[in-house]
C-alpha cells in the first residue's frame, strides 16, 4: 500500500514528523510548566481570584520560605528520611545480591521476583496496609516486637512498651523509613545483581589462586567493581528520597503528622499550594528544593569520582 506521492514522507522530513507528537507534548507539558513555575515563584497569587490577581513581588516568596519554620522542619525531615531509608537500602542490597548471585541458580528468578514485587505495587495500598500493621495496640509490628522482647538478649535493644508509631512525633519517621526501605531494597538488589553478572569470573579465580579468601575477594574485587552501579543507585536514592511524598502523606492523613514530624518538603509544597492556596510561595519552595537536589546530586557525583588511575 503506497500513499499518494504528495503525502509520502521523504527521509529528510520523516524524523521531524515522527518526533512531532512527542515534542509537542514535551513542550506543552514538560518544558512550559517549568518556565511558568519559575515565573510564578516571583509572583504573589491566590488562584481563586483569577489570573489577573497575580502580583509581582520579587524575592518575597523566597524570603518567606527561607524564614519559615515549617519549611526548615520539612527539609530536616526529608533529609533524615532520605538517609535513614536510603543507606540501609544499599548496605543491605549489596550482600543480598551477592548471596543471590553466588548461591541461587535455579531459584534465582523466583527469588528476584519476590524481592522486586514491593517496588511495583501501589504506594497507597501498601502505606494503608502498613498503617494497620503499625497500629499501637493491635498492629502486627508491635506484637512481633513484643514477642521478640521476651528473648533475653534482644530485650536489651527492643522497646519495652508498645511504640505509638503513627502518633508519636519521634517514631513516625522511623515508620516511614521502614516502609520506604522495604519498597526499594529489592529494586537495588536487581541493579546490583545485574552489575555482579558483568564481573568476569576469572578475576576471582586468579585471586583464589593467589590465596585471597572469600571476604578479601568481596572487599577488594567485588565492591570496587560495583562502584559505578553504587553511584547510579545512590544517586537514584538521593533524588528519590528528597521527593518522598506518598508514604508520609498516607501515613499522616495528608497533613504531615503531629508536630509536622512526618512532613516532607514535597508534602509541605503540596499543602502550601492546595491547602493554603499560596501558589507563589509553593513555586518558590519547589525551586529551593530543586536547588537542594542539584547540590546533593553534585556532591554524590564528587564523592564517587574516580581518583586517578585505579590500581
Amino acid at each position, binding site marked *: 500500500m503506497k*500513499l499518494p506521492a504528495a503525502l509520502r514522507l521523504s527521509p529528510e522530513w520523516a524524523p521531524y514528523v515522527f518526533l512531532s507528537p512527542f515534542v509537542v507534548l514535551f513542550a506543552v507539558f514538560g518544558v512550559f510548566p517549568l518556565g511558568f513555575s519559575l515565573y510564578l515563584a516571583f509572583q504573589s497569587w491566590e488562584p481563586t481570584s483569577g489570573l489577573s490577581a497575580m502580583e509581582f513581588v520579587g524575592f518575597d516568596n523566597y524570603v518567606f520560605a527561607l524564614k519559615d519554620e515549617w519549611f526548615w522542619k520539612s527539609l530536616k525531615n526529608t533529609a533524615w528520611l532520605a538517609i535513614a531509608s536510603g543507606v540501609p537500602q544499599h548496605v543491605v542490597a549489596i550482600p543480598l545480591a551477592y548471596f543471590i548471585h553466588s548461591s541461587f541458580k535455579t531459584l534465582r528468578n523466583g527469588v528476584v521476583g519476590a524481592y522486586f514485587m514491593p517496588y511495583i505495587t501501589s504506594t497507597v495500598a501498601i502505606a494503608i496496609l502498613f498503617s494497620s500493621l503499625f497500629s499501637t495496640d493491635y498492629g502486627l509490628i508491635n506484637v512481633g516486637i513484643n514477642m521478640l522482647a521476651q528473648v533475653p538478649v534482644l530485650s536489651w535493644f527492643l522497646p519495652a512498651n508498645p511504640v505509638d508509631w503513627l502518633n508519636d512525633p519521634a517514631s513516625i519517621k522511623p515508620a516511614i523509613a521502614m516502609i520506604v526501605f522495604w519498597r526499594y531494597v529489592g529494586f537495588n538488589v536487581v541493579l546490583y545483581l545485574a552489575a555482579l553478572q558483568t564481573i568476569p569470573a576469572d578475576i576471582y579465580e586468579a585471586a583464589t589462586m593467589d590465596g585471597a579468601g572469600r571476604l578479601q575477594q568481596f572487599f577488594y574485587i567485588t565492591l570496587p567493581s560495583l562502584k559505578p552501579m553504587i553511584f547510579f543507585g545512590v544517586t537514584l536514592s538521593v533524588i528519590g528520597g528528597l521527593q518522598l511524598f506518598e508514604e508520609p502523606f498516607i501515613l499522616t492523613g495528608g497533613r504531615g503528622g503531629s508536630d509536622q514530624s512526618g512532613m516532607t518538603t514535597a508534602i509541605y509544597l503540596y499543602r502550601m499550594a492546595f491547602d493554603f492556596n499560596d501558589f507563589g510561595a509553593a513555586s518558590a519552595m519547589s525551586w529551593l528544593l530543586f536547588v537542594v*537536589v542539584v547540590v546533593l546530586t553534585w556532591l554524590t557525583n564528587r564523592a564517587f569520582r574516580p581518583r586517578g588511575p585505579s590500581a
Partner: protein
Amino acid sequence: MKITSDRLAPWAAYVVVGVGALIMLAPFYFMFVFATHSRTEIFSLPPPLFFGDDFLSNLKILTDRMPFWRNLGWSLYVALASTLLTLLFCSLGGYAFAMFEFKFKNALFGLVMGTMLLPSFMNMIPTFMIMDALGWIDQPKALYIPGAASAFGIFLMRQFVSSSIPKELIEAARMDGCGELSIYARIVLPLLKPALGTLGLITFIASWNNFIGPLIVMRSPEMYTLPLALRSLQSPVNTEWGALMTGSAIATLPLVVLFVLSSRQLISGLTAGAVK
C-alpha cells in the same frame, strides 16, 4: 563435607535470602488476609493470621462508600490509554533519534534527558494550572496525555533501536521503494517488540499506581482512580478498615498477576537499560 574457613556455609546464604524474601512478601499476604476480615477482627489481639469470611461484607461496605468499580474502570482505562500512547510516541521518537540525522538532534535529546533528572514535585503546581487552563480538570485525559512524552520511554526506545536494528536494513528497504511510514510500521515496530513489551509494562504499572497526578487533577469521586479512591476511604475517626483492605487487595491483585506473568521480561528489560 569439609567447610573450609573461607567458604561460606551454603545454608547461610539460603537462610538470609530466604528470610529477606519472606519479609518482602509478608505484607502482601497480610493485605489479602485482612481483606477477608472485618474491621474489629483486624484490630484485635491476636491479629488474624489466616483468611476469614468477611470478604463479601467488606466488599459491600466498599461499594457503598465509593463508586469502586467505576474507579477500577478508570484506573484500567487510563493505564491502557497511557500505555498505548506512550508506546506509539516514544517508539516513533526513539526511532527518529536513533536512525536519522537532523538539525538540533543532539541538543533536543540532551534537553529531554535533562528533564529525567527533574524531581516530580517541580511539576505539581504548573501541571494543575495547565489542566485548569485547558479545562481538563477532572478528566482522564489529563492523566494519560502528558505522560506520553516520557523521557525514560524515548531513552529506552532509542537505546534499543540503535543496538538492535541495523541501518543497512532500513537503507535496503528505502532502496526497494518503501515509504518512511511503511518502514516504521512494517520493519521497525516488529523488531521493537521486546522493548515495547518492557516499556509497556513499566508504563502500565506506573500509571496504575500513580497517586500524585490524580490527586492534583481529579476532583469528583466518580472520576477517581484506585489510589485516590483508597485514600478517600481513610478518615481520622471512622476508617472502615475491612473495606479499605479489600479495596487495597483488589487494587494490588492485577499488578501481582501481571508481574508474576512477566517478571523476567520486566526485570531484564530494566537492567539492560541501567547497565548500558
